């Protein structure tokens, strides 16, 4: 399908995505065969949507630009969806899920792509104006900052807020070449996040866990209400995941040879196949395999930015750069959280983690990149 619709697209991206998805399914199968079957189904659905996206937009994806405000509104609606009583679900303290019957979905994943499409269109139109940096143009910036804070409060999830705002700042910078925007935006974000930190307990807890995962003596444990060592309470998950990574050492235990359940058969690390799939892979593949995996991500990101560079029009450049940076930032936020580089937040590892919304969204993202790439390369021929 890709060959038919986008014959001149970058030839590396799809195989890399396939490789990542295959690694993901393999590890998910190893952790729980039932989940792997569901993940396989999701990949099939994702590939169908991938093909539909390519087919629908094969002539000129730039028509999307005309619907940019629709995408903007769509992104906001999707983000607000988990907050709607009755269908919103709180998992692990963060409100990221929508529940309709047996169907569970993380609308944030799709909202991310909608937002990038909107920003690509909006910024292309307004970039000259914004680049002049007049006070009245700061308005929309503040609106989007407010939106990010809203997302933060709404979802209780620092990771999503960081991801959305990061994408916004990156695209703003590409469009305007004004580092001042990035600086001001970053300051605003930190100020806002600090404010939220004061108010929202969940965010505060995440920061505490990040800074001090181990305690020598018992501290207050919100889960039980009693006192416990923090590594046995709030930071249980992070610490066990670090043990898992450390156990992998240089060569790893080998696929299927890792240790994820204790002698009683209970899982040692909760959410091992979604948020924590990286710590499972790092244990079984070791430093060699984990670095290899990250290099695939790095290559993917490099190819993505290459597409942005060779694209001929502003909308395409912004779209490709936004999609690629979103991909890179998401990878950094979840893996960096697991590795204690930044506070841990519950988002998925693109293509690898178990989860339908994530797989679907990332294949749609891939379709977008291929469309831009195809157009750019066709024009050059």
């Amino acid at each position: 399908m890709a060959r038919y619709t986008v014959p001149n697209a970058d030839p590396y991206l799809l195989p890399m995505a396939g490789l990542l998805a295959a690694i993901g399914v393999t590890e998910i199968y190893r952790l729980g065969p039932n989940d792997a079957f569901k993940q396989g189904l999701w990949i099939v659905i994702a590939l169908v949507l991938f093909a539909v996206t390519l087919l629908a937009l094969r002539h000129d994806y730039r028509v999307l630009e005309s619907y940019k405000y629709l995408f903007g509104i769509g992104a906001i609606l999707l983000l607000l969806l988990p907050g709607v009583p009755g269908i919103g679900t709180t998992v692990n303290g963060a409100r990221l899920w929508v529940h309709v019957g047996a169907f569970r979905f993380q609308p944030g994943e799709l909202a991310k792509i909608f937002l990038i499409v909107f920003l690509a269109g909006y910024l292309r139109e307004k970039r000259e104006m914004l680049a002049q940096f007049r006070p009245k143009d700061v308005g929309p910036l503040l609106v989007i900052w407010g939106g990010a804070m809203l997302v933060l409060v709404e979802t209780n999830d620092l990771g999503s807020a960081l991801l959305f705002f990061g994408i916004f700042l990156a695209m703003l910078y590409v469009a305007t070449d004004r580092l001042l925007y990035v600086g001001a935006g970053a300051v605003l974000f930190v100020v806002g996040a600090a404010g939220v930190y004061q108010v929202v307990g969940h965010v505060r807890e995440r920061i505490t866990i990040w800074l001090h995962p181990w305690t020598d003596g018992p501290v207050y444990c919100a889960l039980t209400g009693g006192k416990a060592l923090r590594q046995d309470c709030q930071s249980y998950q992070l610490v066990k995941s670090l043990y898992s990574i450390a156990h992998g050492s240089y060569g790893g235990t080998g696929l299927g040879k890792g240790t994820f359940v204790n002698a009683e058969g209970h899982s040692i690390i909760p959410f091992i196949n979604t948020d924590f799939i990286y710590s499972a892979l790092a244990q079984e593949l070791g430093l060699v395999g984990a670095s290899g995996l990250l290099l695939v991500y790095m290559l993917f990101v490099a190819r993505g930015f290459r597409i942005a560079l060779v694209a001929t029009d502003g909308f395409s450049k912004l779209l490709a750069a936004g999609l690629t940076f979103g991909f890179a930032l998401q990878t950094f936020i979840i893996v960096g959280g697991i590795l204690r580089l930044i506070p841990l937040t519950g988002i998925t590892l693109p293509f690898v983690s178990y989860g339908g919304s994530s797989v679907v969204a990332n294949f749609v993202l891939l379709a977008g990149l291929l469309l831009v790439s195809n157009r750019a390369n066709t024009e050059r021929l």
Partner: protein
Amino acid sequence: MNKQISRLALVGIVLISALILATTYWQAWAAGGLADRQDNAIQQVAQYTIKRGLIYASDGKTVLAANKPTKTADHILYFRRYPKGPLTAHVVGYSTRFRNRAGLERSENDYLTGANGNLGAVFSTEIDRLKGQTVKGNSLVLTIDANLQALANRALAGKCGSIVATEPTTGRVLVMASSPSYNPNAAEKPDFLQIVGRIKGGCDYVAPLLNRATSGLFTPGSTFKIVTVSAALDTGKFTPDSNFQDPGYCTEYGKPVYNSGNPDQNGPEQFGSLSLFTGFQHSVNSVFCNVGKELGAATVLDYAKRFGYYSVPPLETPINERAPSGLYKNHRLFRPKDPATQVDPGRLAFGQERMLTTPLQSVMVTSAIADGGTVMKPFVVARVLNPHGKTIRTTKPDELGRAVRRSTADEVTKMMIAAVTGGTGTAAQIPGIQVAGKTGTAETGVNHVNTTWFTSFAPADAPKIAITVVLEQQHGFGGTTAAPIARQIMQAYLSRGSK
């Protein structure tokens, strides 16, 4: 816009490089520290994917520690099983799934899990790991003689005490029994400590987990006279014929110290004129009290140190399961700065004062006398076998040092022979074999309740076994309670050896 895109690309690549660096940090740099953390649930399981090496008795066939495979979703885990139960519990120890370990299971964990040993063993372990095969640990063959150990345990049944036997010429530990013992198979149970707490013994301080042989500290009483007499002869200040007057007491600090306080002495209450030899043979306190006064506490302590006192006796078991012998003050080893004023030399000379001795230290003294004055390093692991059963390490006998001259050792041997043939230790006589021994009966402060000792070796002219028996809270004496047990074990060992 391409300039900005290039910069953004750089940011993206730096972000992912940071992830690679952080992964390297955790997997290469911090891995060791994390693996050692008590709450490391991964290690708690992963280490049991290793098929631990077995632990055998000296025959290389009797299995003291075996593996019990248990299947989980990830692996087959190997947990420990101890086929002989309490037989060697204190030496072998235990290893549970929650990483509680004791004894050799703790101190030799590296060998047993194949993590240590020579380069070849480490290499083959890594090959196994790479091939995805079960990593197998190295096995240990101990010096402990299973039959003799069983005999010692039976002799101690219902009593509190310990028996340690060694081969004097090498330092091989043949028997290391501590009573009451416990069943190491129960160590896995959550109520292990309660189970142990219900074990009854013949004394007030039961402590079944304590390895009395290496960390039980007892007043040595008259067995310490071996050290004193060694010092007396080796310094040249006395000979076996040195003459003493025994009025039934010895005067110290202007007050009499009576022999009648010594339940170990036999023969008349007052010997009158006697030699050092006779004084040793009948364990006469006044004689040793005078020897001690003459030598001074510093000299006696110095000789004690030569036999190994004041240092933790070397053995393969964990260091916290071994205690140094010496003077103790407030439950801590007491090193007097000025022994002449701080230590009562007379009482020290016959093993009272605040002198405390472990059974292992006692048998080291006896072994040294048997071996012509050299102290051999005691050892309990004879060989290490790789998973294919090939010996990769053999423990070679090692000298710790010389305690006394050969001539001194020979003279002390003669005195110890006399103590068995016609002195306090006649109960240790074995027909046809010359036994050299010394009794000890230390008062506990409660009337007629004593810690009784017997330490001996045989055959006296070519020693094959040295043994120390100590019993707690006995109503009899060393010569009547401990000596018969020592004789029984020596006889069993020697009669087998002659076959």
